[in-house]
């Protein structure tokens, strides 16, 4: 912890520390009328009851502690609703757990759902600019990076058009380029590369490998074991919000029963 303080803001030691993190989703809009049965919830399935036995929340993560260090490329596996996306969002700081502590060091790039953080009426260039401002960079720094990002997207003239006119694959190219442009040290990805064409997938996985090599951490949630075998050196298996197994890729994947 002392070392972390010393190096704060430097790129020397990225890490992700979670200490006994538990997270419960409130169930709004469902209320007392919600019919929550064990079978309805394939995943977390731990429904909290309030005093009147109404369901008041779903336990998405239970007592998760972990330490990821530089060079860790972690694949997150588990059934739908097992807490993979929630865990990624906790690592990105979007969800703050009510119990436990989260400490992430290093610049973070989170590549989650496509629609998030995009102005669909604005064109590609302006969205790149907004992404840069979100990441805390000045206009000058963004202007420096702009040609490289534009190049990486391979979108050419489309960057002058509103993002709402983009196809899924094109939007993904833009987001990936924006997210990875500022050399993040922590790359969080949520089952994501599906929409790209093979040439871009190749480009993207090369970029991922390059970032991880530059003293980075990758956390990738996916059901694609081949992708995990290719990109990761560790696997974490989540089941109903709990960490079931964590270790080398082959060892863990062998035991996962989907």
């Amino acid at each position, binding site marked *: 912890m002392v070392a972390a303080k010393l190096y*704060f*803001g430097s790129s020397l030691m*990225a890490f992700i520390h979670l200490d006994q993190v538990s997270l419960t*989703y*409130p169930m*709004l809009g469902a209320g007392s009328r919600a019919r929550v049965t064990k079978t309805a919830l394939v995943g977390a399935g731990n429904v909290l009851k309030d005093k009147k036995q109404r369901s008041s929340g779903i336990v998405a993560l239970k007592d998760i502690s972990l330490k990821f260090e530089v060079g860790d490329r972690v694949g997150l596996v588990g059934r739908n609703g097992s807490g993979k996306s929630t865990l990624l*969002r906790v690592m*990105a*700081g*979007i*969800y*703050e*757990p*009510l119990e436990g*502590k*989260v*400490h*992430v*060091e*290093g*610049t*973070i*790039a*989170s590549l*989650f*759902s496509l*629609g*998030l*953080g*995009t*102005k669909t*009426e*604005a064109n590609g260039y*302006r969205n790149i*600019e*907004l992404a840069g*401002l*979100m*990441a*805390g960079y*000045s*206009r000058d720094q963004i202007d420096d990076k702009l040609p490289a990002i534009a190049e990486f997207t391979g979108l050419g003239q489309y960057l002058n058009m509103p993002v709402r006119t983009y196809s899924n694959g094109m939007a993904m190219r833009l987001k990936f380029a924006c997210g990875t442009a500022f050399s*993040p040290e*922590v790359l969080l990805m949520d089952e994501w590369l599906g929409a790209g064409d093979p040439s871009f997938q190749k480009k993207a996985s090369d970029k991922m490998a390059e970032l991880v090599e530059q003293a980075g951490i990758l956390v990738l949630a996916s059901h694609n074991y081949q992708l995990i075998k290719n990109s990761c050196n560790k696997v974490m298996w989540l089941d109903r919000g709990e960490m079931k197994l964590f270790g080398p890729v082959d060892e863990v994947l062998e035991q996962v029963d989907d």
Partner: protein
Amino acid sequence: MLSGMSQTGFQTENNPCKAAAQDIFGGLRQWRLWSALAREDIRSRYMRSFIGISWVTISFAIFVAVKILIFTPMSETNVSFFAPYVAIGFFAWTFMNSVIVDGCVAFIGAASWIKGARMPLSIYAYQSIMRNLFLTIFNFIVVIGVMVLSKRSVPMVGLVAIPVFLLYIVNAAWIHILFSTIAARYRDFMHMTQTIMRVMFFLTPIFWLPENMGGMMKILNYNPLAHFIYALRDPILYGTVPMTSIWIVIATTIIGCLLAYLAMVYGRRKIVFWL
């Protein structure tokens, strides 16, 4: 930690009071981001329209003109007094109304951003305020136009309106943070607020004069929005400083800021789950 480089590392702050203060003040430092987001809001709203943002001025001017035309005879005053009376009052009202209505949806409207990256929530409030401030400039053009046409000079005391308008902006901040938090949790709140504001428009002295209302005025003076209007309009129009109204505005500001802070203490980390 919500630092200036917000997608750099962070550490969860387990003290909600400290975290709320970090959110509110840390968000202010990101002015580049919320100004850019506000600019994009306006760009997309007026995109592909021929006269673009001039619509703001035009629609405000027409509305004020019609109000002056219809209500001057009823007001038992002359146009050179009543025209600026309506213009300033309606200018203040338009700002307050859009701040209160937009103030309910700052977080709901930014749901896709809030779920996409760790940012101080307050930046979405500041984005909305910035947008409203920018649009209000276009309304102000009409106020100036009316003042010039009705050949009214502004007394020195009129400068009091400047700090009063700054208080308007501070009020916009607490309204956004408080109302957006409540509206994210209770979706009825937004509809309720809109309904109330529609009624308040008629209960606030914008196109009628308090002195024409007789005994009713005792009740109408309980409307805090009326005092916000007096505090801005009286110095410009009458050259007087309505101290009672100014104290009410200041008290509202302080109480509102405290409530907004409490809303952040209680709701900050829950808001993302309510969206």
